[in-house]
């Protein structure tokens, strides 16, 4: 009896915390249909806020920020995937000592706090007079994305059977063919997840972009534009709509990806169990 009560209390606790965690998200979505930013439905149910994404005087700035975000993310993700893939293969075939050094350097952008990385890059760019704007941002994004690409490919290389690659060489493939026909296909899952990770991290970044974008250029990504606009004036209905779309898109994508992962894992466990 006591145990059952404890069980119910435990479950209730979990759902209370979950409710608090999601309350702001749900409230913003609900009131995005109110057309006001005062959390009331005095104006009734309306799509005004959503329409204003296209009609507000801020929409050009918003759309150019979205464009910049995607442009930087695509370039950074492509470059860091290519560089990271080759880097992973190179690191994998290094001697133990140099491998450890490089792996530690690779770890640095990941453990370092973003603000320190941001200001260190800023000092560097200012000192060596890198042109303000896209170049700085793209370099910075590549610098913090590539380590994640390397990290998502390394385990695939580790778990790869080195004999397969050797066999390809023994069977007469030249190293280039062995690389493209045998090695790459085996590590493709790692490359793909590395690319997705790099793309997402780049879109999500705020701190490093904010500090390196340069005030004079007027370049904004979505996050820096949100910061510059909402910090001054608070949230207008316009932002309720934008945030709601982001909430729904991100949560739906994450839920799909992760449920799929769990299902795949379960299928794998079952397979092992049958054997």
């Amino acid at each position, binding site marked *: 009896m006591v145990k059952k009560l404890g069980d119910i209390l435990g479950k209730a606790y979990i759902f209370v915390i979950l409710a608090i965690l999601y309350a702001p998200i749900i409230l913003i979505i609900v009131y995005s249909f109110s057309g006001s930013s005062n959390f009331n439905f005095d104006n009734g149910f309306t799509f005004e806020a959503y329409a204003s994404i296209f009609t507000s005087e801020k929409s050009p700035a918003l759309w150019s920020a979205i464009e910049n975000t995607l442009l930087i993310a695509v370039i950074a993700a492509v470059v860091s995937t290519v560089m990271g893939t080759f880097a992973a293969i*190179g690191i994998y075939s290094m001697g133990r000592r140099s491998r450890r050094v490089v792996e530690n*350097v690779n770890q640095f952008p990941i453990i370092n706090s973003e603000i320190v990385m941001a200001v260190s890059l800023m000092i*560097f760019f200012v000192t060596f007079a890198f042109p303000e704007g896209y170049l700085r941002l793209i370099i910075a994004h590549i610098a913090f994305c590539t380590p994640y690409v390397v990290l998502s490919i390394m385990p695939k290389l580790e778990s790869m059977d080195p004999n397969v690659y050797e066999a390809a060489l023994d069977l007469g493939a*030249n190293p280039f063919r062995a690389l493209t026909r045998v090695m790459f296909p085996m590590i493709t899952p790692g490359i793909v997840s590395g690319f997705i990770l790099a793309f997402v991290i780049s879109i999500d970044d705020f701190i490093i972009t904010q500090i390196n974008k340069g005030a004079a250029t007027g370049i904004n990504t979505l996050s820096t534009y949100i910061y510059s606009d909402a910090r001054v004036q608070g949230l207008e209905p316009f932002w309720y709509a934008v945030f709601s779309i*982001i909430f729904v898109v991100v949560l739906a994508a*994450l839920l799909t990806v992760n449920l799929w992962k769990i299902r795949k894992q379960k299928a794998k466990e079952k397979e092992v169990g049958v054997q």
Partner: protein
Amino acid sequence: MTSATAVQAKPRKRFKITKRVFAYLYVLFMVLFVVLPLVMILVNAFLDDGGNLTVENFKTFFTEESSLIILGNSLFVGVVTTAICLLIGYPVAYKLSRMSSGKILVLFFILPMGINFLIRTLATKAIFIAMDVTLGMGTVLFGMVYNYLPFMILPLHTSLSSIDKSYIEAAQDLGADRSTVFLKTVLPLSVGGIMSGITMVFIPTISTFAISQLLSNGKIFLFGDSIQTKFDQGLYGVGSIMSLVMLAFVLISNFLMNRIGKNNNVGVGRSLW
């Protein structure tokens, strides 16, 4: 036969070398854009405006009242946030690890991390304003806990659900009651998770930029915010010193984590994708 193997072995060996070359571009890139900038922080920390060697920046930072207040504020917010996250998060992670649907449910706790922290912070701020809550220390702490709770729950859940059930059963068979089982078996076995949870909440909390500013209407500045302000004002020396202090926090906590266990902390938010 021997000559055939020799012919085959040779190009393979040569390729081994070229494969290593693949990493050289990346190594060069990292030295240029990760290592060198950090070295420049280190150098700037010991230079004055004229470019002369000095320890004046150190003195300024550790004697100036405003920077000590910021340091104190940061440590206070960091410690309190971490403690609240642990107090709220441990029961959640514990309960989840014992539920059959825990694996799916924990997902719902970490999903919000996929949304940019700025957007979540502004959403909470809008709600505080609508509820007429005065922005200050209370709201900053709420915002921090709200943002970083998942960072606590995930490592705790990982370590709690990997505890072998037979340990718990053994303790019960040997006559331990529920609280003894928890205190003597479950808790010690989850220390690794607790430690990684603590670092994953504490470091981002003190180094984050914008959250405390936004949720206190610019009244409370933490380390991350003031590093940015210092650089904004062109005070590279003091800003660099503060970055070094931050870096020290990061390195110490990372060292401790590696000591305690091979917890692969690739950043909780990133592991979602």
